[in-house]
């Protein structure tokens, strides 16, 4: 199989971070990213970015208790 270059690796950043590449490919990309001074920080940044988006967007929006009670009353 052809060796992965940076362009290949960068193109797959989302699929990789989303856990959507098959295992052989995953290990190839992982090995490249660990070694590569260009791809490594880019991967790390995207990983942190998605993490921060998730953390921030999940902050402070639990379902209000009054709404929860109203919903379950619909079942009665």
């Amino acid at each position, binding site marked *: 199989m052809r060796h992965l270059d940076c362009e290949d690796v960068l193109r797959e950043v989302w699929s990789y971070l*989303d856990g959507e590449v098959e295992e052989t490919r995953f290990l190839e990309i992982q090995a490249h990213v660990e070694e590569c001074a260009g791809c490594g920080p880019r991967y790390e940044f995207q990983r942190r970015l998605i993490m921060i988006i998730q953390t921030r967007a999940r902050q*402070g929006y639990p379902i209000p208790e009054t709404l929860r009670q109203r919903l379950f009353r619909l*079942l009665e």
Partner: protein
Amino acid sequence: MIGVLAVPQQESAAVAEDRERFTALITEHLDGLFRTALRLTRNRANAEDLLQETFLRAWRSFHTFKPGTNARAWLYRILMNAHIDAYRRTTREPDIVDQDDVDEFYLYSKVQESDEFRRAGNPEEALLSQLMEADVVGALEDLPESFRAVVVLADIEGFSYKEIAEVLDIPIGTVMSRLHRGRRQLQVKLWDFARRAHYVRADGNAPSTPGGAGR
């Protein structure tokens, strides 16, 4: 008379059991469903209505749910369909403009090119730690609806591509292209917010130093 009375009693026992099973199934997903309803409708009152409609539809079609299958995907699918029925018909989707000059690493490149952020020592972390809840929510809500749904399901709710395809009833390839384009647009928005916040702080108060938060 006894026979007549006995039937409804049996029925209500079955209904009570269903109600119990339904409650157990939906309870743990209510926070996520409400949060998603807020992001989809961008409006608290409409989000509450949407959640109520979702709840009722789920209850009504509970008998079609197969135990052991993906309850979360089933519930989000009902939410998405209820949303489409209620809102998408009345609001016209703005034309989707793809920015050709934007790539997957837009935000990273912007930070690297910025003298302001480079002065922070760790420019990437300086930017990321500056992004607040309001910035992220604002950027999400600015996304075109079809991108927003996919980004919310993937990045906030943590669904896999296959599950999103199921929830939205679209092919996996479409999930991927909307997700990637959505994330690109999100980065453009986040850069606007971050830069604005940074300039404001540079003019007035000193920017807070994050001091290597994260791992």
